[in-house]
């Protein structure tokens, strides 16, 4: 049995899903508390120890696990029970193509910190994203509740619309980096870009495609259906939308999949636009070259892995924070505003972005 893939899968499941997702619920609570001038979650305690409210995620899980799991009368039982799983699985398997670090050489052995280093990595993410809509849509339909049904309808329209735009917003990035492989994209950003031959900037995607970054972040946040794009839930209009009839851990799964998607979005934007695992202004060779005279090449490479992984996680947490900031700053859009934003603003702009990128590339590269 090969050990490496098993370790990678376990890492994704234990660290990214079970480890970080609950912490993000805590970050969300604390972020909202800070922004609304409150103290925030700090009441869950174990013999008087609260650890800044970090016990709240555990309390949430215990509460959701012990709650009754209600299936409404007249619901389609099989689909009602399945749809939380259909929502959660795509969010988890999207981690497979995210590079948590580069490719490192220890003598003859090579270490590649990507789950599956496939040539069509970004296309895989889009394929997963298009399957992810089913969890929401089926949950809305199978609950036998008109409000849920409206939520499901809204979700299907919103997710289909933004999927198209999301794909088009990153075409500019494909053209700049000439690849769809996420690890190659991160590697291409691991160098210095000289603006006008004088100002050193990290060669990040956001430098080449600032408009693409903004549009991609908007589209992918709309795909995640969180505020300000939470029209499928819309508490003031349709109570809780598609997950209205869910209780206990099945509701918890919807909740968790939303938070796992936050991590996926953060990791994806960090990889495509913020240089992935690369340290700004300091390429990998410089790091290894600087450390190896003292500690030897092998140890320097090991230290470099740690530095890169820490940099990547720092960028991921930065993007998570940005999403939290937007979520607690903006009010919910109206349904027609969400649709207008997609079809009348983002779609034409992203096509214009593709043309402009092509023109510039043609002028620069000849």
């Amino acid at each position: 049995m090969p050990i490496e893939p098993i370790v990678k899968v376990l890492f994704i499941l234990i660290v990214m899903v079970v480890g970080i997702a609950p912490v993000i619920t805590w970050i969300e609570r604390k972020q909202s508390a800070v922004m609304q001038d409150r103290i925030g979650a700090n009441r869950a305690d174990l013999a008087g120890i609260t650890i800044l409210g970090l016990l709240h995620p555990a309390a949430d899980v215990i509460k959701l696990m012990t709650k009754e799991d209600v299936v409404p009368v007249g619901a389609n039982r099989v689909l009602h029970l399945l749809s939380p799983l259909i929502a959660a699985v795509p969010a988890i398997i999207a981690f497979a193509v995210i590079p948590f670090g580069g490719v490192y050489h220890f003598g003859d052995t090579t270490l590649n910190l990507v789950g599956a280093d496939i040539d069509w990595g970004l296309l895989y993410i889009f394929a997963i994203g298009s399957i992810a809509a089913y969890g929401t849509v089926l949950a809305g339909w199978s609950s036998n509740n008109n409000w849920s049904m409206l939520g499901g309808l809204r979700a299907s329209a919103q997710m289909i619309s933004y999927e198209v735009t999301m794909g088009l917003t990153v075409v500019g990035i494909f053209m700049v980096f000439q690849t769809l492989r996420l690890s190659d994209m991160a590697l291409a950003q691991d160098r210095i870009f000289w603006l006008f031959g004088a100002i050193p900037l990290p060669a990040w995607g956001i430098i080449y495609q600032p408009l693409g970054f903004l549009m991609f972040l908007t589209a992918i946040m709309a795909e995640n259906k969180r505020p300000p794009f939470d029209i499928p839930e819309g508490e003031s209009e349709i109570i809780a939308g598609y997950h209205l009839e869910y209780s206990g851990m099945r509701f918890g799964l919807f909740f968790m999949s939303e938070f796992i998607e936050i991590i996926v979005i953060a990791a994806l934007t960090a990889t495509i636009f913020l240089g992935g695992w690369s340290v700004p202004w300091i390429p990998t060779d410089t790091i290894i070259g600087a450390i190896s005279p003292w500690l030897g090449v092998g140890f320097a490479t090991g230290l470099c892995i740690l530095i890169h992984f820490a940099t990547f996680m720092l960028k991921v947490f930065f993007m998570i924070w940005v999403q939290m900031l937007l979520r607690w700053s903006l009010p919910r859009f109206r349904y027609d505003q969400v649709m207008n934003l997609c079809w009348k603003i983002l779609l034409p702009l992203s096509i214009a972005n593709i043309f402009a990128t092509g023109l510039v590339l043609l002028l620069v590269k000849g």
Partner: protein
Amino acid sequence: MTVEAILFYVFGILAVVSALGMVLNIRNTVASAMSLVVTMVSLAAIFLLLEAYLVAVIQIMVYGGAIVVLFLFVVMLLNLSTDEFPPGKQRVVKLAVAVAGVAILAQALVALDQNPLLAGQPEIVPEGFGGYRQIGLSLYTDYVLIVEMVSLLLLAAIVGALILAKRKID
């Protein structure tokens, strides 16, 4: 049997069973649409086994995702019940379709049997086969005229749909 062969049979059986599930399920339109998704994803898996990565991804994105979600959207919007499609009439149609399907399949099998390309040893797959680069290159060099014609056709379809929808609104 190799791993590929086992996977091929697993996904092949899954594709056939879920396709039958889609056609034969008359009680529940949504479940039948979900069977179609399973068929599409199994077909994508078979494309992956053939190293046709781009086709596999497009199969999932376009057919498994977008189109069936649109089907679901319409089914949920109209909220059809079984009464509107009397099962008696449907059975005749289904039987006719099944007979036609078997006839086409038999013809395809005969044609495949006589195909000289399949007689020899399979060729080794060239580097980058089925990737977005190769397909993109051949689409925009060898087949550029056909691509442009199809895009013109799609544009005409969009304009037509818009006119039909707008007439209703006005």
